[in-house]
């Protein structure tokens, strides 16, 4: 017996657009539209793609008693969630988003997530949080338990969450929400749109510049259609979302990471705050310190499959002598490279770019090579200290 699938506020729009629907994270979601995965992928890299990511878990953690001192209130709400994650939340600047990791006591990944600090002085003491669809119920319970009676976690996953990604995303979004032009990569703010409050963030999971917008359910459909009315925008399904994030070298939770995988194994060491590592004040901090010192058993790498079929999740990785040394956790055909690529875990000694390995696909050994991630360069619109004008 399986639970009936949930739907997002854009479900009817997907059906009307001829989407092929599949179950994903408990939701009935579009895997592709009429263009198909290959064309949708390439469209996003060249123009702008609109993605329904409403199945994910946006929420707001809000202090029950604010002092009115913005800095103090931010420190107070950060102190509630920092014991669960390895990132520096207290140190976020107003309007800044950070990618961080929810960890268990063994230092394994429960989820990866975004946490943001509101821009406005009168909204301090609140955090904007977005977790993954398949893990959100457990994540939300953990966060609320950690917050106790000091803060309330208000779920916002009844709303529409729409991503717009690609080199023309900024131009398209600025025409609808002018504030978009003011945001740099990993910045967000609340904006007013036709009397509704929206959360506009410059981020995404394709490696391209772009945005994620949280919109009230009653206008989700209208906002989605407004984006699609621009000829530079096409709807993009989960199939291309997966191939885009794979080319961008970004891990997918449940595939490239799970509760046994540590941040350093996942090659996400950048997500561990220096302050937090020095203070050893997050779950699995001792493991992180030991792994940084060399006690790393395996590490996520990128692989280019030099010949043969795509190596998909579960395919074994062998060294040049044929001994199995790892496993593929994500893999497929990269439309932007016209070649099969994969990510997987290998021992650190075999993790340097250029290392010759093999992938075993349906019993056949095919040559592969470790390559630096990302496979396709990121094109984020960073705004910090840009002196070129």
């Amino acid at each position, binding site marked *: 017996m399986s639970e009936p699938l949930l739907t997002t506020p854009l479900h009817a729009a997907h059906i009307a657009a001829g989407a092929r629907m599949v179950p994903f994270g408990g939701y009935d979601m579009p*895997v*592709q539209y009429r263009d*198909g*995965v290959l064309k949708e992928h390439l469209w996003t890299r060249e123009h702008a793609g609109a993605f329904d990511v409403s199945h994910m878990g946006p929420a707001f953690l809000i202090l029950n008693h604010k002092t009115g001192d913005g800095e103090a209130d931010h420190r107070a709400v950060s102190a509630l969630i920092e014991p669960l994650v390895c990132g520096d939340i207290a140190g976020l600047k107003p309007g800044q988003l950070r990618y961080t990791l929810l960890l268990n006591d063994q230092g394994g990944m429960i989820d990866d997530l975004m946490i943001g600090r509101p821009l406005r002085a009168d909204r301090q003491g609140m955090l904007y949080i977005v977790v993954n669809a398949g893990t959100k119920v457990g994540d939300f319970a953990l966060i609320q338990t950690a917050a106790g009676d000091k803060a309330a976690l208000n779920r916002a996953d009844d709303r529409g969450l729409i991503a717009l990604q690609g080199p023309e995303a900024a131009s398209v979004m600025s025409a609808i929400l002018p504030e978009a032009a003011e945001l740099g990569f990993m910045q967000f703010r609340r904006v007013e749109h036709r009397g509704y409050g929206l959360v506009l963030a410059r981020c995404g999971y394709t490696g391209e510049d772009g945005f994620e917008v949280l919109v009230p359910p009653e206008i989700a459909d209208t906002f989605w259609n407004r984006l699609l009315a621009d000829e530079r925008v096409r709807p993009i399904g989960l199939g291309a979302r997966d*191939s885009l994030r794979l080319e961008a070298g970004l891990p997918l939770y449940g595939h490239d990471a799970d509760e046994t995988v540590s941040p350093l194994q996942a090659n996400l060491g950048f997500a561990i705050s220096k302050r937090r590592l020095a203070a050893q004040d997050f779950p699995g901090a001792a493991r992180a310190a030991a792994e940084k010192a060399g006690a790393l058993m395996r590490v996520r790498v990128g692989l280019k499959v030099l010949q043969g079929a795509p190596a998909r999740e579960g395919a074994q990785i062998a060294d040049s002598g044929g001994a199995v040394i790892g496993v593929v956790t994500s893999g*497929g055909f990269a439309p932007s490279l016209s070649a099969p690529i994969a990510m997987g875990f290998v021992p650190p000694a075999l993790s340097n770019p250029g290392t010759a390995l093999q992938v075993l696909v349906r019993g056949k050994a095919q040559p592969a090579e470790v390559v630096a991630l990302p496979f396709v360069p990121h094109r984020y619109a960073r705004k910090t200290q840009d002196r070129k004008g």
Partner: protein
Amino acid sequence: MRFTKDHEWISLDGDIATVGVTAYAADQLGDVVFVELPDAGKTVAVSDGLAVVESVKAASDVYAPVAGEVVEANAALSDTPETVNQDPEGAGWFVKLKLSDPSQLDALMDRAAYETYLGTL
């Protein structure tokens, strides 16, 4: 030409059958990016794995609709797998089989029966 419920087509010339996937199958698979074909000389029984078709998203097995020996695989598909989408029932053929028992074709659908079957899906 004969058809299977797994959306393969078989075209017979003497005792050599050319096998491919139908336009319906090609559409369902999406953009084909890789086709794994058997080597000449391989013998297959009905329902043995004959080929693997890969789209961006997934790998799909193609099973032998009839028994026989592979006499030729379509080498052009290694460089241009998209031919499967462009001309599935022509240049996008997969293999030529020397049939063990040509009467096995009698159990398969003709085009009219296959079209009717598609209408039930």
